[in-house]
């Protein structure tokens, strides 16, 4: 992999907008496990899958039954399935490669967030957080739903599903959506309720095992795990983001919970739950902006859990705050004046993707600086001047024997050209399942430029070069034997210099040639 070449001196978080993606009005986004595909739910009910490498559309999932806005998108573990929740109260499960709908369920209330079970590659259950109702486990095959308890008060310990109600048992406001998420392997659900408590629930038995109260008791709006499952983040109404360390083991967390009976048996009820909770999560850090007291939107971790990012849409701004895990604010990214709606950090690269309310998806990446030390292969970049202390015999006229000492690698060493290094960032992938890293790229057949659908769906073109302009005298051919006509996107590089005497100097205009987004990058 290219890991050894990337300069470790530069910080590992994005700095500028590199590009933006445009297709209809997108509302929510999710990366697949490796960050090679980005799924975006649109306001017209369709879900677009972008190939993140080429920044082009790889697949479009569209169902004529669903025309209302998508509220959330969730990938299955290896990228085979996508779950989409929409404003018409439906949940739709799609097969990614075939682009076909597998099943569709309707709930009683609009789900604001729906997450597929992260443990299996073809999950059939999901966790849905509907508007004005407790979160529920939905079996996508049968459509049955089981409500998840949202309170630590007495009705714990039994597996019966309470009847659905408009109000919570503790009488809190019905319209506050309760936040919930799976842990890394999906055996536990962590719920953040409106009393400011984190409940740790075993979803199979619908049993609350532990409670972690948050000081201040403010309503919890978001609850999210880091990718490696070791940290949990909560976002509360008191405008604070809190990071907890997950003390349970990643695999078999439920078993560990059951066995954590160092608690004496006479501790009962809520006290017991709190004691168990204390063994599951430990408060690590709190982040807030004390000056502007921002309500955070869509906070999440970076792929490696080292950074925490939170968005701010207050007063219609598009700001992204980045903290390191120790709590220091390292960067504030400011985007165009379009309120931020959703945010996601790439699982592997220092790239952040944000959605604005106008439906555009902005890609933030590191600002590239030329690394001149890369010019010669054995140059090394130093942070600061180093005094060079020469050896005692450096300037002596030595016989050749000494000098040969530092000759290159032994040429008789075995060279291994076939073994592949295991990528440690994905160490938990079991090779039994084939992961969908990319969708096959089938070249669009060439069509006359005026009707080229590919133009609209591609990412931003430079300098508003209008389609159709260089082609007027060359229109009429189709596809194959075109010698002169360039597709509109290539208009910049119109290479019909063959007969025109090479007077088209467009190519020479830009000394540093990048076709795309040169006005945005660098």
């Amino acid at each position, binding site marked *: *992999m*290219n890991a*050894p*070449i990337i300069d470790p001196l530069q910080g590992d978080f994005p700095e500028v907008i590199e590009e933006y993606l445009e297709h209809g009005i997108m509302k929510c986004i999710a990366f697949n496990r490796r960050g*090679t595909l980005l799924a975006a739910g649109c306001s017209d009910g369709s879900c677009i899958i972008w*190939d993140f*490498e*080429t*920044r*082009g559309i*790889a697949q479009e999932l569209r169902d004529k039954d669903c025309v209302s806005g998508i509220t959330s998108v969730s990938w299955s573990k290896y990228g085979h399935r996508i779950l989409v929740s929409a404003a018409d109260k439906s949940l739709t499960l799609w097969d990614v490669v075939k682009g076909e709908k597998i099943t569709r369920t309707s709930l009683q209330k609009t789900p604001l967030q729906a997450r597929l079970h992260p443990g299996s590659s073809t999950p059939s259950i999901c966790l849905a957080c509907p508007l004005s109702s407790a979160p529920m486990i939905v079996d996508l095959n049968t459509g049955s739903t089981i409500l998840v308890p949202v309170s630590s008060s007495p009705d714990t310990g039994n597996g019966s599903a309470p009847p659905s109600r408009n109000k919570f048992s503790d009488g809190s406001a019905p319209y506050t959506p309760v936040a919930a998420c799976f842990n890394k392997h999906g055996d536990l659900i962590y719920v953040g309720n409106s009393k400011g408590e984190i409940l740790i629930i075993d979803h199979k038995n619908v049993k609350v095992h532990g409670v972690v109260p948050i000081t201040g008791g403010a309503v919890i709006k978001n609850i999210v795990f880091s990718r490696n499952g070791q940290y949990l983040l909560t976002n509360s109404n008191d405008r604070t983001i809190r990071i907890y360390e997950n003390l349970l083991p990643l695999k078999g967390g439920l078993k560990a919970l059951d066995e954590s009976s160092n608690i004496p048996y006479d501790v009962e009820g809520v006290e017991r739950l709190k004691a168990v909770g204390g063994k599951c999560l430990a408060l690590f850090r709190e982040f807030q902006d004390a000056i502007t007291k921002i309500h955070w939107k869509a906070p999440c971790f970076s792929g490696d859990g080292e950074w925490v990012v939170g968005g701010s849409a207050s007063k219609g701004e598009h700001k992204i705050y980045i903290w390191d895990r120790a709590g220091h604010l390292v960067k504030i990214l400011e985007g165009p004046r379009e309120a931020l709606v959703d945010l996601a950090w790439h699982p592997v690269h220092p790239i952040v993707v944000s959605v604005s309310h106008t439906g555009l998806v902005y890609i933030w*990446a590191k600002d*590239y600086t*030329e690394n001149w030390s*890369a*010019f*010669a*292969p*054995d140059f090394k970049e130093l942070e600061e001047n180093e005094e060079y202390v020469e050896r005692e015999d450096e300037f002596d006229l030595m016989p050749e024997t000494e000098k040969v000492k530092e000759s*290159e*690698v032994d*040429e*008789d*060493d075995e*060279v*291994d*050209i*076939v*073994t*592949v*290094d295991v990528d440690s960032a994905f160490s938990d992938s079991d090779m039994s399942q084939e992961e969908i890293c*990319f969708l*096959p*790229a*089938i*070249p*669009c*057949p*060439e069509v006359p430029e005026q009707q080229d659908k*590919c133009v609209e769906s*591609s990412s931003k073109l430079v300098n508003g070069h209008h389609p159709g302009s260089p082609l007027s005298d060359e229109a009429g051919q189709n*596809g*194959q*034997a*075109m*010698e002169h006509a*360039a*597709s509109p*996107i*290539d208009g910049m*590089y119109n*290479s019909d*210099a063959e007969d025109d005497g090479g007077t088209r100097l467009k*190519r020479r205009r830009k*000394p*540093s*040639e*990048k*076709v*795309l987004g040169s006005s945005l990058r660098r």
Partner: protein
Amino acid sequence: MASNTATAQPPPYRPYRHLKTLTDHTRAVSCVKFSNDGTLLASASLDKTILIYSSQTLALLSVFSGHSAGVSDLAWSSDSHYLTSASDDRTLRIWDARSKDCVKTLKGHTDFVFCVNFNPQSDLIVSGSFDETVRVWDVKTGRCLHAIRAHSMPVTSVHFNRDGSLIVSGSHDGSCKIWDATTGTWLKNLFDEATAVSFAKFSPNGKFILVATLDNSLKLWNYSTGKFLKIYTGHTNQVYCITSTFSVTNGKYIVSGSEDNCVYLWDLQGKNLVQKIEGHTDAVISVTCHPTENKIASAGLDGDRTVRIWVQDT
């Protein structure tokens, strides 16, 4: 494999022997490549056509014509469904091997396009040209994603590494550079010397780069340390951009063409020449190894115009 020596000894090297000569091209053959699934063999020629053979029967299956000038290089997509070709008519074409149509023409280069390759995901194509640039194209839309002013002389070779994150480019200006495939930014100079680089390619695991330079040598470099580990000599390579490749189906070898009309095989570790295959009547410009069988195809220039198939008996 039967071995008549003690079991501790590796089996003796079995030489490749001639299987067939394909004489369908009417001008010099510039490139031959087996498809990744091993079923097809493609050959490109200065007669502006690309021929597809079945690699089993070596029967000619189809002829792709459409380029208006000679074809210098070609590459298969990972699923063996698409083929891309680089031509002196300054375009690249993407052909569908099953429907036998040209599905896309990629324009943008302003001089001969000399070398081309797909990335392992086959959603990107990288091409190098006499206009000294390296271009990365989106397969689906045919859009040029990056146009990199890579070198100061014609770019002779471009290749993606195993996971598609890096591109290596070699050029007559003597440098071999490594680029980030997603952003098109320059990461590193593998080396920058006086001798023209005629060919560069990553090893199957992406850790090493095999580089041919026009001073009759082939070197295997470790790109992270910037040092070369092995050097293979004995062949002649001072004028043409001769391709070489790794043979891993039966022991590890480096295979290369040569201007003395022979195909050379060296043992990868020992660097010794194990076989020199004669038969062509002009310089051997391109060699390719079948992905699973012990089969090599080689192509000869204008004085020869044939594609010859060599197999190893088992």
